[in-house]
């Protein structure tokens, strides 16, 4: 076996494992959407599959990001280096973050044709209209759950790209938290959670700037940044998270 290519095997294995979880996740969401439609629970206006996935996939990716650290002992146990695990897991997470939006947008297009045929309209989404009232816990939770949104009816390509970037970073944040708990102790893990809240808010602010929405929240002073700088800053945030994950797992002791 060429040891230089082991990370590609890791990427393939992790991608396939997570892909099968994802198929179940998207299948359940689709089933719920269909049942709600058939039962007429949504009236003549429906949420739509894309919008359901948009909200739920953030939480889903955060959870499977947390689970990503548990692949480490499996791979090291099979003679794979921590570096190959890191590279493989990163590639798999990119693959998954592209796969989910592609499946979602394809289902959305099919759904749109059906909605047109049976005369159902999409509900107007208010995801971007976050109202912060100064309650630190309420504001934090709102900003953690909701990410900048683009309506696929207006720009399906941009909507897909924004969904990609939202879920990719959410996955990385989950992975970052679990690596911190795995590699260090509870105190460092809790510090990582606080860092994740800040990173998510910074990334959302930058993404809002990049898609020309008004910046809100603790980092709204970044509003002065041009779009290109905001995009570069998002990439920089991604690199920082990846660098920290690599640092925490580089020489970590694998638990028996």
């Amino acid at each position, binding site marked *: *076996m060429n040891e*230089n290519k082991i990370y590609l095997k890791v990427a393939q294995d992790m991608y396939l494992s997570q892909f099968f979880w994802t198929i179940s996740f998207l299948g359940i969401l689709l089933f719920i959407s269909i049942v709600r439609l058939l039962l007429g629970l949504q009236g003549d206006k429906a949420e739509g599959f894309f919008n359901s996935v948009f909200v739920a996939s953030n939480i889903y990716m955060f959870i499977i990001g947390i689970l990503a650290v548990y692949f480490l002992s499996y791979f090291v*146990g099979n003679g794979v280096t921590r570096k190959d695990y890191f590279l493989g897991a990163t590639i798999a997470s990119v693959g998954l973050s592209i796969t989910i939006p592609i499946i979602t947008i394809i289902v959305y297009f099919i759904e749109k044709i059906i909605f047109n045929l049976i005369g159902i309209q999409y509900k107007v989404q208010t995801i971007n209209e976050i109202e912060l009232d100064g309650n630190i816990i309420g504001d934090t939770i709102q900003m953690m759950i909701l990410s900048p949104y683009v309506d696929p009816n207006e720009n399906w390509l941009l909507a897909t790209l924004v969904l990609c970037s939202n879920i990719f970073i959410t996955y990385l944040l989950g992975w970052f938290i679990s690596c911190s708990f795995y590699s260090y102790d509870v105190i460092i893990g809790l510090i990582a959670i606080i860092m994740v809240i800040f990173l998510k808010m910074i990334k959302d602010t930058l993404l809002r700037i990049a898609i020309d929405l008004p910046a809100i929240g603790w980092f709204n002073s970044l509003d002065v940044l041009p779009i290109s700088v905001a995009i570069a800053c998002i990439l920089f945030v991604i690199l920082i998270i990846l660098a920290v994950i690599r640092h925490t797992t580089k*020489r970590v002791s*694998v638990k*028996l």
Partner: protein
Amino acid sequence: MKAENLHLHYGGHVALDDVNFELNGNNIIGLLGKNGAGKTSLLSLIASYREPTSGLITVDGEEPFENAKVMQQIAFLYDKDYSDESDKIGEMLEGIARYRPNFDKEYAESLINLFKLDREKQIKKFSKGMKSALNVVIGLASRAPITLLDEVYLGMDAHLREAFYKELLEEQQRFPRMFILSTHLVSEMDYLFDEVIIIDKGTVLLHEEIDTFLAKGVTITGESELVDQFVGSKQQLNVQKLGNTKSVMVYGGLTEDEYENARRLRLEISHASLHELFVHLTKEDM
């Protein structure tokens, strides 16, 4: 494989304290030690599960930690928690085979038959014995040049353990490699070992070829005064007395003259077993 001044400390605990040894050739090495002696810590360093606090471990001159070439060649099997493992055995072995360059699927199949493992059952539903046998299947079928088995056979019943010992020796004939078998149940495995390392309180107490080691443990039995006179200043591992008869286990072996002298004094000489030597060398009051 060479360990030089190996130390491992974690959580305020000294797991290994200045461990040194050198292993050469395709031998079966018994790593003996009481519970908590440092066996698993040492194996986890060899398998790159963790880094030493200080000191060096090398395989063919290279450090194994984060070394893809070396890590691929080392298989470490231990009493793993399979309670979340929903795969069946075939799926699990398929996954492992992707990362083990010498993995032999046909051999794995024959081992599954030998240990009568259920192919249709999820691994988490395996009994303790079946989980142990699964670890043995992975360890043998991976055919890694360095195979570390950390007490994985303890969950197996006597019949399965016998089957494993027999298979291990046959496999060593077919594909010789370095096996390190850790155990604290020594008596039934002694015939497997070419070498033994005894580890106690995180340090290597001794490392010898098995024949050399066994030749050093001798029990002298006879009239109490004669035995005392014969034993003299030799290192005594164990003393038993019944009436005027005394039995003393000494460590260090006997010369030809001493054997002759024992015959002349009508003292009975017998060799101590590996189990007896291990137990008495690692006694708390030694």
